[in-house]
């Protein structure tokens, strides 16, 4: 089986889905001839042509808005926002339209749309190129939020996202794009949306982390009897898997690179603190970036949760 990095795995998912189903079309800035600024769509333009790899004008709102229209007509558009930091001008199209068109039309019109965006920090890029504001999208009924943490799941999740009948925000951790290689089978397999993955079993503490933080968490928990859970889908969240684990371990550490206050860690902590209160041996603790803007290259590693900070927190929680 081929060893692929995440860029290649996503590329393969797109290629196979496009081959399988001519309703799948890709649109965005530089996704066509250029193959995307991260080369995620490389080779697809030559294979599928300008009709299905649509280089759009620089118009984030209309990229998503037009994709909504395409989806309504029966296509399965995959829209790329070049970096998550530029999705904010498409916020209205995502939240007021993509998320609601099914509801507004009482399912007469649906929006099987995927919005892909590179996201997350640690790549020493300019401002707005290292955002991780997934929590916004988790507060939107009608929208699913998916975050892969490696090549294998990336492919399978993207296939599921494309086949999902409703809008999916698919966030690709930029720092991982070329960091990890894994065996990624060609051909059909789908990693289901809404189902978390137990990445490592353990019995004394549960750590939940997604995207590029997972890689750090795996390093940080070395030597601990820790269960590590990767939700894969943040919305709708797989509460069962997480709660089952915490009821076992009695401890929960949540790690995300988004800013602390109002991050999705809050929802997880709140839910667990309510629903597993009788099992908790320690307070639920969040490790996150501070409530400041993502700094530029010189400071970004002070901002992001480090392996040491995660390990330190796990250690503290274990002392309860």
């Amino acid at each position, binding site marked *: 089986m081929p060893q692929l990095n995440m860029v290649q795995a996503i590329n393969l998912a797109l290629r196979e889905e496009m081959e399988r189903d001519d309703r799948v079309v890709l649109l965005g800035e530089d996704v066509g001839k250029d193959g995307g600024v991260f080369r995620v769509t490389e080779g697809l333009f030559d294979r599928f042509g300008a009709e299905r790899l649509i280089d759009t004008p620089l118009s984030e709102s209309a990229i998503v*808005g037009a994709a909504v*229209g395409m989806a309504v*007509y029966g296509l399965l558009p995959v829209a790329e926002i070049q970096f998550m930091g530029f999705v904010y001008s498409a916020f209205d199209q995502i939240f007021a339209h993509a998320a609601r*068109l*099914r509801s507004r039309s009482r399912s007469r019109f649906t929006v099987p749309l995927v919005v892909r965006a590179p996201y997350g920090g640690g790549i020493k890029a300019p401002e707005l190129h290292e955002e991780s504001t997934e929590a916004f999208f988790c507060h939107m009924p009608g929208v699913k939020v998916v975050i892969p943490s490696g090549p294998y799941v990336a492919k399978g999740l993207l296939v599921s996202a494309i086949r999902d009948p409703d809008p999916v925000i698919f966030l690709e951790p930029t720092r991982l794009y070329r960091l990890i290689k894994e065996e990624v089978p060609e051909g059909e397999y789908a990693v289901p949306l809404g189902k978390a993955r137990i990445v490592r079993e353990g019995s004394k503490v549960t750590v939940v982390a997604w995207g590029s933080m997972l890689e750090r968490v795996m390093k940080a928990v070395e030597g601990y009897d820790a269960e590590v859970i990767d939700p894969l889908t943040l919305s709708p*969240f797989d509460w069962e898997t997480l709660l089952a684990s915490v009821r076992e371990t009695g401890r929960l550490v949540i790690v995300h690179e988004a800013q602390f206050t109002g991050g999705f860690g809050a929802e997880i902590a709140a839910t667990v603190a309510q629903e597993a209160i009788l099992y908790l041996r320690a307070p639920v603790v969040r490790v996150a970036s501070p409530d400041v803007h993502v700094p530029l290259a010189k400071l970004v590693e002070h901002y992001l949760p480090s392996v040491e900070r995660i390990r330190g927190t796990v250690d503290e929680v274990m002392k309860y």
Partner: protein
Amino acid sequence: MPEETIATFTVRSLRILDERGKADEALMPPLSEADIRQMYELLVLTRTYDERALALQREGRIGTYPPVKGQEAVQVGSACALFPTDWVVPSFREMGVHFTLGYPLDLMFRYWAGDERGLVTPANLNILPICVSVGTHIPHAVGIAMAAKYRRDPVAVVAYFGDGATSKGDFHEGFNMAGVFQLPVVFICQNNQWAISIPLKGQTASRTLAQKAIAYGFDGVQVDGNDVFAVYRATKDAVEKARSGGGPTFIECLTYRVADHTTSDDASRYRSPEEVAAWREKDPILRLERYMSGRGLWDEGYGAEVKRKATRAVDEAVKAMESAAPPEPGEMFEHVSATLGQRQEKQRFVDHPPAPS
């Protein structure tokens, strides 16, 4: 170069029926007497619905309502030019388009009464749900046109919006994309001179709205929006061009919002009775009546009969609306996603159990 003129653009306007009801026969589109009668009946139906809606709102039987009055010709005239296979992406003040295309009156009442089930477009119509968020629906029309073009379906997509919508970023992004991809889309602006209290000159310094198409490399035309024939013809030309691969068209229809912005508004706060009176003179229904009467197609008896028929249809729709069962609380969970998440399931059945009846 050095200092030279490198491009010249013109904006055209079209009117067929003048205010006294005289038609320019050279420009008149081919319409049978039956066609013209049908247009008239749809105009009257729209107005009758509109007047009733206002009355119902005053009685608290429906919610906030945005009156159409004065703009019927844009709506009926343009919609008459569409095929059932065409797509319509409306804003919130195009009830005449809906009715022309056959949207049930009672559904429309139910929507304005606060029941989202009123937005279930019948299966034979391609009309997107009413969109109150001004201008943000324009990219949807563009995307539908992209998909139709991809599918090689010979359909036109028509987006409706007001003068205020031309200031939104989505207007621009959508128009620009339509130009780049030469899409089968027709943009119809009901320039009714006002966006709530903002008059046109507070909305844009552009002399006409039609000229905005110049920025996107396609045609823009200004049409007398109270002239049902001119609107019909301009739309017909544009949808035919669209269906045959000729790309987008922007049609600015000059008209006037004779009533308040909505039932929550009081237009007398920001505009003069004289201005309104002057536009009442240009009433699109009156104008068509004059024309028809000149051709022997209209007399008081016929007018009264049409009104009666419209009133009957509206009466029935009100009855249908008011006898429809109210939505169950669980209804609000029904169409969020194809399937509910675990938590929504719990919210639905534990936190929001069906109300005891």
